[in-house]
């Protein structure tokens, strides 16, 4: 029997590592390209001031790089330490992208980082520039493989994996389908473009700070120009691909999108609640969406349009997903659970028969296990595909909590639009040659520097809290993924790492502020 408090601590520890890790990752992803842009201009023009700009931003990049890399290794190994059952059951599908990441991305990143940081006087300018670009590409390739692994957790399609009754594991059947899965691709593009936005806003904000103080003016103007252009493109792309991402989620993880939108009762022409305060109610006791909010401002038909590409399409709410909706072919939780329970029973029978050498019993159990129970648009759904539902005992376990989902998703989206507006204002001002004196936009940029970190953290909360109660959506519940271990062990390591993260995080910020305060002249 799993100790639930132990499960919550294991989740908390993992979430803490993920959040701390992701403070630094997007900065690395975006900053590596910005530094490469600056250096390209330097190599093309040969002007010394561009070299100074490159080296200053590279120094800031370097301060973040080490801590991002080091927290990544904890994350990788915590899959084993905290989620040992998960690691065994899905190791083929999840471990493979991690191994490929190591081979094709991490080494590229680490190897060329050495030239980029320490090779200014040791290699030619062109070799150095190539190293800076390869460092940026390596960092971003690393994100690609991680998000392929994460995409599998979000939508474990039968296109690339199947449940093997013999090994009781989910195994890979098509590597190409795994790496080209649409969920992972849009997730990757959304993540990296958000990361570029974050880094660009940091550069714009710090440059604005210098302009407001009348310091390093030429440096700041040049930096801001590149950052505003890059940030505008990145922020618009983040929104566009974010829409595509939401579309994928709406069609693969209906409980996630329903929770994030606070949609309890499914409807045709479903609206988006732009602003609202949701109530956390039992969906089975709600008869109308109006009951589910303290107040709300809606955009009519937008959820149907964005989620289904049809303003009049039906979008299921949590009530439909729990109670079922025959009109739209949605099964109730009970039916999903019953079929999943039959799959678990068949799996057990198979292994008992196997242990006894009962070939006929094995065949019978196998037939039951892989029995096709539904046909959704030509895709055959077997009991094996529903095995995870057999482990859920309560309908309330089927969906993630509404309030945290609603707020995190909506804050992320609102901030995303704010970034587009801010970059548009800054870019327009720069084009007109008025940015140096546009104190309002400069102040807005400075104030906005922390906001992308909030947006990206909420984005990940939406993705990962929204995946609950599963580690692998629909297949493996979180409660059955955890390492069986005494609670005190996790508590002890939780505080051990928390202490380290707090100290190192504060040190990182303090060093960063010191470097920024000092400015680009002789920053090293």
């Amino acid at each position, binding site marked *: 029997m799993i100790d639930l408090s132990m499960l919550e601590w294991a989740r908390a520890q993992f979430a803490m590592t993920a959040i701390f890790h992701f403070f630094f990752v997007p900065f690395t992803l975006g900053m590596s390209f910005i530094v490469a842009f600056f250096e390209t201009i330097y190599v093309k023009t040969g002007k010394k001031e561009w070299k100074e700009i490159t080296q200053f931003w590279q120094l800031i990049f*370097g301060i973040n790089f*080490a*801590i991002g*890399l*080091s*927290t990544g*290794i*904890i994350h*990788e*190994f915590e*899959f*084993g*330490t*905290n*989620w*040992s*059952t998960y*690691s*065994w059951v899905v*190791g*083929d599908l999840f*471990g*493979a992208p*991690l*191994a*490929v*990441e*190591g*081979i*094709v991305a*991490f*080494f*590229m*990143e*680490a*190897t060329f980082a*050495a*030239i980029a940081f*320490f090779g*200014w*006087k*040791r*290699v030619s300018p062109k070799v150095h520039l190539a190293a800076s670009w390869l460092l940026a590409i390596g960092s971003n390739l690393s994100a690609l493989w991680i998000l392929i692994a994460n995409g599998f957790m979000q939508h474990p399609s039968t296109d690339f994996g199947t449940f093997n009754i013999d090994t*009781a*594991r989910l*195994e*890979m059947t098509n590597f190409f389908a795994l790496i080209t899965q649409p969920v992972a691709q849009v997730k990757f593009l959304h993540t990296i473009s958000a990361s570029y936005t974050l880094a660009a806003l940091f550069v714009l904000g710090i440059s604005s700070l210098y302009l407001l103080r009348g310091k390093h003016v030429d440096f700041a103007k040049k930096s801001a120009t590149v950052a505003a252009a890059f940030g505008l493109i990145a922020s618009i792309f983040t929104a566009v691909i974010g829409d595509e991402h939401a579309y994928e989620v709406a069609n693969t993880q209906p409980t996630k999108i329903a929770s994030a939108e606070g949609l309890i009762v499914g409807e045709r022409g479903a609206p988006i609640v732009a602003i609202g305060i949701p109530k956390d109610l039992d969906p089975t006791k709600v008869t109308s969406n109006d009951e589910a909010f303290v107040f709300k401002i809606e955009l009519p038909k937008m959820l149907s349009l964005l989620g289904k590409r049809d303003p009049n399409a039906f979008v299921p709410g949590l009530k439909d997903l729990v109670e079922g909706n025959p009109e739209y072919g949605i099964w109730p939780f009970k039916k999903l659970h019953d079929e999943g329970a039959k799959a678990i029973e068949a799996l*057990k029978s198979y292994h008992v028969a196997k242990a006894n050498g009962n070939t006929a019993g094995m065949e019978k159990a196998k037939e039951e296990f892989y029995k096709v129970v539904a046909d959704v648009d030509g895709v055959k759904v077997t009991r094996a595909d529903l095995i995870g539902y057999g482990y859920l005992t309560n309908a309330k376990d089927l969906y993630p909590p509404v309030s945290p989902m609603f707020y995190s998703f909506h804050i992320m989206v609102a901030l995303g639009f704010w970034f587009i507006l801010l970059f548009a204002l800054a870019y327009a001002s720069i084009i007109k040659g008025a940015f140096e004196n546009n104190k309002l936009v400069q102040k807005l940029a400075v104030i906005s520097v922390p906001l992308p970190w909030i947006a990206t953290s909420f984005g990940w909360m939406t993705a990962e809290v929204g995946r609950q109660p599963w580690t692998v959506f629909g297949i493996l519940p979180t409660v059955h993924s955890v*390492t*069986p*271990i005494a609670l005190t062990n996790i508590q002890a*390591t939780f505080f051990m*790492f928390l202490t*380290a993260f707090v100290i*190192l995080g*504060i*040190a990182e910020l303090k*060093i960063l*502020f010191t470097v920024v305060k000092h400015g680009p002249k002789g920053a*090293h």
Partner: protein
Amino acid sequence: MSWAPFTTDATHFYLQVYWWIIIAVLGGLFLFMTFVQGGQTLFHVAKTEKEQQGILNSLGRKWELTFTTLVLFGGALYAAFPLFYSVSFGGAYWVWMLILFAFVLQAVSYEYMNRKGNLIGSGAYKFFLYFNGIVGVVLFGAAIGTFFTGSNFTFDSATKILEWGTAKDGINLRGLEAAIDFTHGAWFNLAMGILVFAVARILGALWLINDLDDNDFADVINRLRAIIRRCFIVLLVALVVVLYGLVTLKGYAYDIHTGKVTLEPGKYLHNLLAFGAAQLIVFLLGVVLFVIGVLQSGFKNSKKGIWATGLGTVLIGIIVFTLAGLNGTAYYPSYADLQSSLTIQNSSGSKYTLAVMAWISVSVPFVLAYIVYVWYQMKKAGPITKAELEDPESHAY
């Protein structure tokens, strides 16, 4: 012909062997790369700020590669042998958590140590580097020791749900018992930990001798040569204990067709002589290279000892892992329940996954080639000088 659990056919078996060899190569490379950790325990050799900065910058340009090798080692184990990832990381929880902790502290220390505003002072970061160099390496060595002495776990054969600490005569400290439970081979694990630490320290000293300028760091280099000689004595003592263990310990043998695990006296010696004694030859070649490097830079004035000793370490490391996992040997044995022991067959990924990953592994030589190219590019400008450390463009730590 039937196969041990989860091995579907001969091709699957050969893929499992192939992947264990890849793991062994990565393990060997990681052992070589621990010269960074070994070097981190040598800051006290420096008597001036500038000498210390020289050591910091020499190692600081390589720590990421050690880190990346460890990440790849973990990733490859995850993909190829997921049950090991599950059992060892989830089971020997404290060992891995402490290793991770040591590595997190290390990574930031290079960047933060000499920066203004680093909050806790440069001494704290230097302590972190020592902590990583000693605790991280000794624990890693002890963890390798358990590949031969076994661990305290069982699991359900169908669900593979892990139970740690089930041996009636064992101690359960979630992995840390490997260092204190002498009835289950703690002496061997500790000797392996000390051996790996001594190797890392010798490699670290050899690396610094190679990478620091002879004139600018002449005093440090002389002291490093003395360190190599002293560490070599520690290494010899630890090596004798480890070799005694390998010859006398009962090994965890298994039948590759039925999967049944049994204890076999002299198993690891038999493994050394298996495959036409190829492993013995490679092992001896590794030892000879290792000693040549030590003689070159520890006892003579050459700067090149790191290359022979480094290559020797890789070869010895490969053999340590192949001894543990090939020739019908359970590489992660359980002394609580022999039949719960992990073999390359019962813990591996599917045939399809291993095949796909085998194709991807073809890119490894290409990766190694560009790493060598980058090292060459960085090295050809000469060793690290004091003038370079004072240059604001050198990104000196």
